[in-house]
């Protein structure tokens, strides 16, 4: 069936099997490979994107469920050459190593601060519990999110 949606401000339309997961649509049909796949059980959060401004693990949605929606992926977060404050904070705090979890982690963190603009460390750890990282021990990710929150304050 045909699905159409807006991804990072561009209209994307494609024929898909009904069972196609949104993350596969984003990667294969829209050609945006910044959104990564890390598990089969919606545990890791590597595929987190924004649907109508809210963080969603894109493996938990079918492409057809996103029909007509407004999506943002990691490729749409920066303002041209200027990094989003969360991207900038991840860079400044060394919050990424292999980088595989990073797109999902950044998208989830942006969404967290939309909901809780000035979180405590505990709130960050609770809020991003659904995004796994194997490299950083999370220390610098937490620091980056707190720094981004501080910058917005």
């Amino acid at each position, binding site marked *: 069936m045909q699905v159409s949606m807006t991804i990072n401000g561009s209209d994307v339309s494609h024929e898909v099997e009904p069972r196609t997961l949104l993350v596969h649509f984003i990667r294969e049909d829209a050609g945006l490979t910044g959104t990564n796949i890390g598990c089969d059980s919606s545990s890791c959060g590597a595929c987190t994107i924004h649907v109508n401004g809210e963080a969603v693990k894109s493996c938990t949605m079918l492409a057809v469920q996103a029909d007509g929606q407004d999506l943002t992926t990691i490729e749409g977060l920066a303002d041209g050459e200027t990094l989003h404050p969360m991207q900038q904070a991840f860079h400044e705090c060394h919050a990424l190593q292999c*980088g*595989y979890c990073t797109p999902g982690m950044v998208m989830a963190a942006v969404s967290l601060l939309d909901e809780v603009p000035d979180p405590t460390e505990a709130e960050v750890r609770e809020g991003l519990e659904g995004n796994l990282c194997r490299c*950083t021990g999370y220390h610098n990710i937490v620091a980056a999110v707190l720094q981004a929150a501080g910058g917005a304050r």
Partner: protein
Amino acid sequence: MSSIIGNRVLRREDRSFLTTGATYTADVDDPRLAGAVHATYVRSTMAHAHITVDASEALGLPGVVGVFTAADLDGPTVLPGVVPVFPEPMLNRPILATDTVRFVGECVAVVLTEVLAQGEDAAEAVFVDYDPLPVVVDPEDALTDEIVVHSAVGTNVAVDFSNLGMATGITDDAFFADCEAVVAGRVSHQRTASAPIEVRSTAAAWEGDKLVVWMSNQGPHGVKETLEALYGEQATGGIQVIVPDVGGGFGAKIAPYPEDALLPWLSATVGRPVRWFETRTENMNAMGPGRGHVHRFVIGGTRNGDLTHYRLDVLVDSGAYARIGAFLPMFTLPMTVGVYDIPNVETGARSVITNTTPTEAYRGAGRPEATLTVERAVELFAAEIGMDPIQLRRLNFFRAEDFPVTTGVGTEYDSGDYEASLDLALEATGYDELRAEQARRRAGSGPLQMGIGVATYVEVTAGPAPGGDEFGRVEITPEGRARIYSGSLSHGQSHMTTFSMIAADRLGMEVDDIDFVQGDTDLVPHGHGTFGSRSTQLGGSAIHDAAGVVVDEARRVAADLLEADVSDVVLDSEAGGFHVVGSPSVTRSWAEVAAAAGKGVLDAESQETRLCSYPFGTHVAVVEVDVETGHVRLDRMVTCDDAGRIINPVIVEGQRHGGIAQGVAQALMEEVSYDADGNPQTTNFADYGIISMAELPSFELVPLETPTPNNPLGVKGIGESGAIGSTPAVQSAVLDAIAHLGVTHLDVPLTPRKVWAAIHGA
């Protein structure tokens, strides 16, 4: 210009990761992969069985390009062993199982489809008939040989390290006859999953007679070596291995797997490129886990705390075939006594086959096991003689003034100050105040008890002894920039930044004037890759040395330009050029020197063998244990880790953080487990309980730098230290919290159920 070494330089490689998600193997968009088919493996669902496979139904399904079983293979049929010391049937893994499967997840067939999703459907239509065989899961059971996994070998023992001259052999009780106090114990080190967030992913294509393989791996040159053994005759045009960005490895992506090794044959057979991207469940079942040791120790000494005798008997669970995991006692045995000057030591080590996934390396790879056991032994000996375990450590440490030292097993440690790391970590922790707080809690009646655990470790990096080498090349471009090539391979370790700093310091350039090349065997002729905390010591030193040669060559060229004697020409780091000593106003830039030199002159390689080094440190863990539920909360993790000279504290701290988290995970929650029939119980991240940020505090890092004399940079490895000290520290902290309830020892992972059961005598 002051040196950039030691400065907090932010990563140069970050931007693409942050803005487009970089390019991992599954993201590679290369014309050579146009029209690729997707491979989906059909895997054994039984741990031990004779099989017959019927693939006929799958062949007719939509999008199926081919279905292949072992009977169809007319190319390579086995993946050669990594370390050739094991009996052949254990050493060489069948690429597709022939008549017998030996673990759940072993490949029995492969399906090629136009679209990946079609592969899942087709794989389900390949019917495998299983005739079950008896299963052995536990390595101690395997040692009895009641059930033998490789009948052609006749025993499950893949190797006895005493026979290789790598262990002394175990004698009898007389060894401890002179000791006033003796404590013995059994310590288990559970299987853990490396669990990189990127699973395994590989692609293969033929460009005429040239084989090109893209693979998520820790070093392309080892992969190329394996592929040459399998496809060398066929690939008359050569073999190119490309490792794009890699989403983590942690030891499990060092050697190629059967799934990787078959892709070139599949590609040649169907005449199209082939891509493979596994699921997490496949990854948990078929990518090699780490650890899987059972240790028995005996420790003896005087009642006033002089440790004099130690015995370590290692049993390794190899899984169904003997891969890297089976050989890791080579790193455990040399580190048997850790930081302690124990003169009389005997060792033994055996690796046994079981009906489980073959084990590979995992962060620390043999050293965490040595450390955890000796730290447990010291804690238990201290309890036996009624001494504070910290005091017992101090009495038995190798002294800073005695380095280099030779240990009771003959290992030569280069440098160290173990007591300094202990003092610094305890001071940062506020140890005495914590003990007072612990006493208050014990006096009260609340369920929340506090525990404090200390572990002092030493490990070997760039090992095994005596050391290793890595390829490095530095060339100056016509524009006067530098391009550096490394056989080492960052898969998160930040080589672009660290190695650029090393080159910039030597060449008198800015870091941004340096381009970094890795991960392509056509561009980098030699290499080993990144594992064993070797990269900066070996790869960084190679860049340092090659850059030095280039500077000397450039000074000769500049001397001609300046009409001066070469001995009078100096590199001016401030100006980024060359001048006659004392005359800084007349300078020749790198670009001018490069233009005069011509092609190929300012270009040097280095691949010198260097000695390994022995990083050390002390970790202190503070936990809260709810004695009513057995739940453990890690409140603080204070670590003092010495990695010699620090090139970039930002990167080093990041490496420490990551290691600490993985070590804590092993102490508290993560375990790859099987039921008695060999069915894996932890097949995804939901079952495995992989550690998240909610289970961890921020870490408190204490700096200490004791440079090693063993390489020109004075650096030691730091990639694995965090995972080595933290597990025993957390284990001791939990046991400390419940010691007053009569619990003396519990094996990791210290899950709520295990802790609760110990407290309540269940």
